[in-house]
């Protein structure tokens, strides 16, 4: 006979305000098998847990039901408490009467009634719970970092520092990411390259770090501690091991009219190229879309000039397969496309640029060697208008609903740098709100206003019209002085919203991690587990999780590394014991389960059985590898005979819940 203890939590007033917890405890005390039913202020507190532990011992409980917050919050807490009192942790069930009851309902009577029903379902389920023991599964002591921007580099360095091997997969020919394109950084105004490139070099020289540049993740299989990843090393038509990065090929290449993506297409590069001087690895890459040798077999100049014979026109994509214990996603962001914002004339006028383009225009390694000139006529601009929130904070149909977070600060930086370098320039910043929370951030913005006389105007630009005299008409409203402004500007800079990199979505599918509607990766808990995904062994670093500036990105990169190190330190991890198992006596051996298993956890064995008529027969039956099974339950439904069942969520348990709810 079952001896079940029910514990109803008040959660302060979180539950008790809308659910009559005493009535719930009283009602559940009459359920079959329930020997004790109590309520308490905070079940998750130490004294609350002790209450449970003591009751387990005193009443020799065979099952525990906690009516409290979501099992996603405290299931583990109570399982541990039960285990320490000698009860198998999987004999604990949680009835979610907070998130799914008290917080969504207002009327005490109906909320209490629902809480009782939810409690009843948990009691019905716990009747059928069986003690489960976790298996151990070994951890591969190697990490994969996807993305070689500042986030990925920081994470890789920190993991390597702890003594674990780590691979960086970067889709571009060099690591460095967006930060490599940035000129100066706020709020200190130090040079981005000066602080980034030492880290890039450190990463390339660290014996624990392997950089797979110009590579992409092709397939991810496995589970925490034991991922198998296929990486596509794209053909760069240059032997990485031979190339010295001398750059002779890039000089001699006759095809020089290739838009230079590193400079945002503001100037050109050659078909064989090294993205920028400090690229890591410093290896040339041939762009097959432009190389005349690859396109029509005529040229071969680079191959002739290369003294080490590194050019290989026959190179093909290569797929390598590696095993990892942990994976860190650091796929970063991109500015959104501005084609649909006609009112800002971005597509019509070359002097309307995005902020990232402005970074390149102002950078010493940029198209103008660091002198700020209009892209159209290479003249010095005297009036520059900055427009904030372009595509950020919009209705769904108009752009991104979120604040891109970094624009206020980099715009202040741009405005300040321009006023510093070219004091004869008038700079206007049209803002909706100026958001500068962060250490020394507001001071920085105030300096732009007070020290550099940047004109901050509250109001959005409504219309940008290129004029025949080369000026750009900017029409905006000044909401504070309540007038409409018409400014003849020389340049307009748009603070485009940022969005997750396009490769993130297919990657999330491969990694089986969740994303939000904006394609940012969802963290396991918005406050308490910010660098972990809900999928064990997958960690999040940098702007792939949400808009972030550099200091935050680095902090999160290190945090993700710490989490990954915590995993890699272990020799083995405890597997979820809620896995499928097959009842051999019922199994038909039909292979339905095997076909729907996403992990290949099911195999078939020929086994001898004694039949009812005392004969023996050899039958083909399914066998589940519990270390590989992740417990989704797809097989349980595919199985026609009901031989396949899932620990912790068995057919009979779920049906008991259904019955209890429908009673």
């Amino acid at each position, binding site marked *: 006979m079952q001896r079940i203890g029910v514990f109803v939590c008040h959660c302060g007033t979180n539950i008790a305000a809308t659910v009559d917890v005493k009535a719930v405890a009283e009602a559940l005390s009459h359920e079959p098998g329930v020997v004790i039913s109590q309520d308490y202020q905070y079940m998750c507190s130490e004294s609350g847990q002790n209450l449970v532990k003591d009751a387990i011992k005193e009443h020799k409980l065979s099952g525990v039901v906690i009516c409290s917050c979501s099992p996603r919050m405290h299931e583990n807490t109570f399982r541990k408490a039960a285990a320490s009192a000698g009860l198998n942790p999987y004999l604990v069930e949680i009835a979610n009467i907070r998130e799914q009851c008290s917080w969504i309902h207002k009327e005490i009577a109906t909320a209490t009634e629902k809480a009782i029903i939810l409690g009843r379902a948990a009691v019905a389920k716990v009747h059928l719970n069986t003690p489960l023991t976790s298996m151990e599964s070994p951890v591969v002591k190697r990490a994969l970092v996807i993305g070689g921007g500042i986030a990925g580099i920081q994470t890789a360095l920190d993991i390597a520092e702890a003594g674990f091997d780590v691979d960086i997969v970067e889709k571009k020919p060099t690591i460095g990411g967006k930060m490599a394109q940035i000129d100066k950084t706020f709020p200190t105004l130090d040079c981005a390259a000066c602080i980034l490139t030492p880290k890039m070099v450190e990463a390339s020289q660290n014996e624990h770090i392997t950089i797979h540049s110009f590579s992409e993740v092709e397939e991810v299989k496995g589970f925490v501690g034991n991922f198998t990843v296929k990486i596509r090393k794209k053909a760069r038509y240059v032997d990485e091991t031979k190339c010295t990065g001398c750059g002779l090929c890039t000089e001699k290449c006759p095809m020089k009219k290739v838009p230079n993506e590193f400079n945002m297409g503001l100037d050109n590069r050659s078909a064989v190229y090294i993205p920028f001087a400090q690229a890591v690895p410093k290896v040339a890459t041939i762009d097959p879309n432009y190389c005349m040798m690859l396109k029509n077999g005529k040229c071969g100049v680079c191959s002739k000039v290369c003294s080490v014979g590194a050019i290989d026109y026959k190179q093909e994509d290569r797929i390598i397969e590696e095993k990892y214990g942990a994976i860190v996603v650091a796929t970063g962001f991109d500015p959104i496309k501005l084609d649909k914002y006609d009112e800002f004339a971005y597509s019509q006028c070359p002097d309307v640029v995005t902020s990232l383009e402005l970074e390149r225009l102002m950078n010493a390694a940029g198209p103008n060697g660091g002198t700020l000139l209009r892209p159209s006529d290479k003249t010095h601009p005297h009036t520059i208008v900055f427009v904030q929130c372009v595509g950020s904070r919009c209705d769904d149909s108009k752009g991104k609903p979120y604040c891109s977070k970094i624009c206020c600060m980099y715009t202040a930086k741009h405005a300040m740098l321009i006023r510093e370098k070219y004091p004869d320039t008038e700079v206007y910043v049209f803002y909706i709100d100026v958001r500068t929370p962060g250490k020394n951030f507001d001071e920085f913005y105030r300096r732009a206003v007070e020290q550099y006389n940047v004109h901050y105007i509250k109001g959005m630009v409504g219309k940008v019209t290129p004029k025949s005299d080369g000026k750009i008409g900017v029409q905006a409203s000044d909401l504070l002085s309540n007038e409409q402004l018409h400014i003849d500007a020389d340049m307009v800079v748009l603070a485009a919203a940022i969005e997750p990199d396009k490769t993130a979505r297919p990657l999330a599918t491969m990694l089986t991690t969740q994303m939000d509607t904006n394609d940012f990766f969802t963290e396991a808990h918005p406050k308490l587990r910010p660098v972990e995904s809900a999928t064990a062994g997958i960690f999040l670093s940098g702007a792939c999780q949400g808009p972030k500036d550099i200091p935050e990105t680095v902090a999160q990169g290190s945090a993700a590394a710490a989490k990954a190190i915590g995993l890699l330190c272990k020799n083995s991890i405890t597997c979820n014991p809620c896995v499928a198992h097959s009842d051999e006596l019922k199994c038909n051996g039909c292979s339905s389960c095997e*076909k729907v298993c996403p992990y290949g956890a099911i195999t078939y064995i020929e086994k001898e059985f004694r039949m009812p008529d005392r004969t023996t027969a050899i039958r083909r039956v399914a066998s589940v590898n519990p270390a590989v099974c992740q417990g989704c339950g797809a097989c349980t439904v595919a199985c026609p*005979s009901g031989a396949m069942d899932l620990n912790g969520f068995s057919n009979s348990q779920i049906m008991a819940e259904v019955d209890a709810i429908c009673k």
Partner: protein
Amino acid sequence: MQEAMIKRAKELLADGSVKRVIGWKRGEFAYDITPAVFESAEELDKDFVFDVFTSANVSKYLVKESKKEGKVLVFLKPCDTYSLNQLTKEHRVDRDNVYVIGIPGGPKLDIEKIRAKGITGILSVRNENFTLKIETLYGEETMPFSDAILDKCASCKSKKHVTYDELIGEDGDILDSDRFDMVEKLENMTAQERYDFWREQLSKCIRCNACRNVCPACTCEKCVFDDPASGVENKAAADSFEEKMFHIIRAFHVAGRCTDCGECSRVCPQNIPLHLLNRKFIKDINSLYGEYQAGADTTSRAPLTDYTAEDCESSIVHERGVE
């Protein structure tokens, strides 16, 4: 035909290539023919029969027989070969242990339809140029052959043998059948009409389990309806369970696996058109996930253990047809 079959079966038994023969055995009357296993030439001579009433699908017997010592010879009509393929695919039958002789298919006759003409005391039935000559205790009667055809044969989907080791007679083609007409007719009724139709039909069920027992897709080691642990165990005839659950669960269990052999409806003593449930699934699968015929081969993935990222959403059910 019958003689040729017996002759060949004897040969194979004699040279030891097979140990047993599965076919049809004559019963007390001309029309109550049952599937049977024959182990000797004498048994074959005595009881083996192949005629207008040998409609039973014998493939299911291979689940047990193919596991026994020695090869088993089986005579399969085209429709029966689909069932064998499906059973082979699901590892229920050891195909290597089976020797299949493909024999021509129907149409076979429905004794009930002959009786429905008021003909009783039937001794034998012969088909002469599409006219049935029925010898009865009270003299000879005739009726058009087409009036007595079994429903499942009337909407035959294929005369092609999808698996065999040798053939007696000619192989046929996959037919353009009208088997989904009735399903479509029901789909075009209102929900209330459909509900009334099925309530009338399913309430006749006496839960004899004949449909399950004859079904070549129902070969589970332990049927969920017999398994107390399954939660749907139910042996006694209880009205509302039959109407609402038993037949839905059974149809779903064989969804994507049913070869549409029509045996369920043929054996139903209450004449419930159970095959319509299976055909509804087949029709849905064909229209939603692409043409699929269970048993057509032994390698393709069944529709319910397969998917594409572009599959329609379940709400399609709400958007189409008649409410």
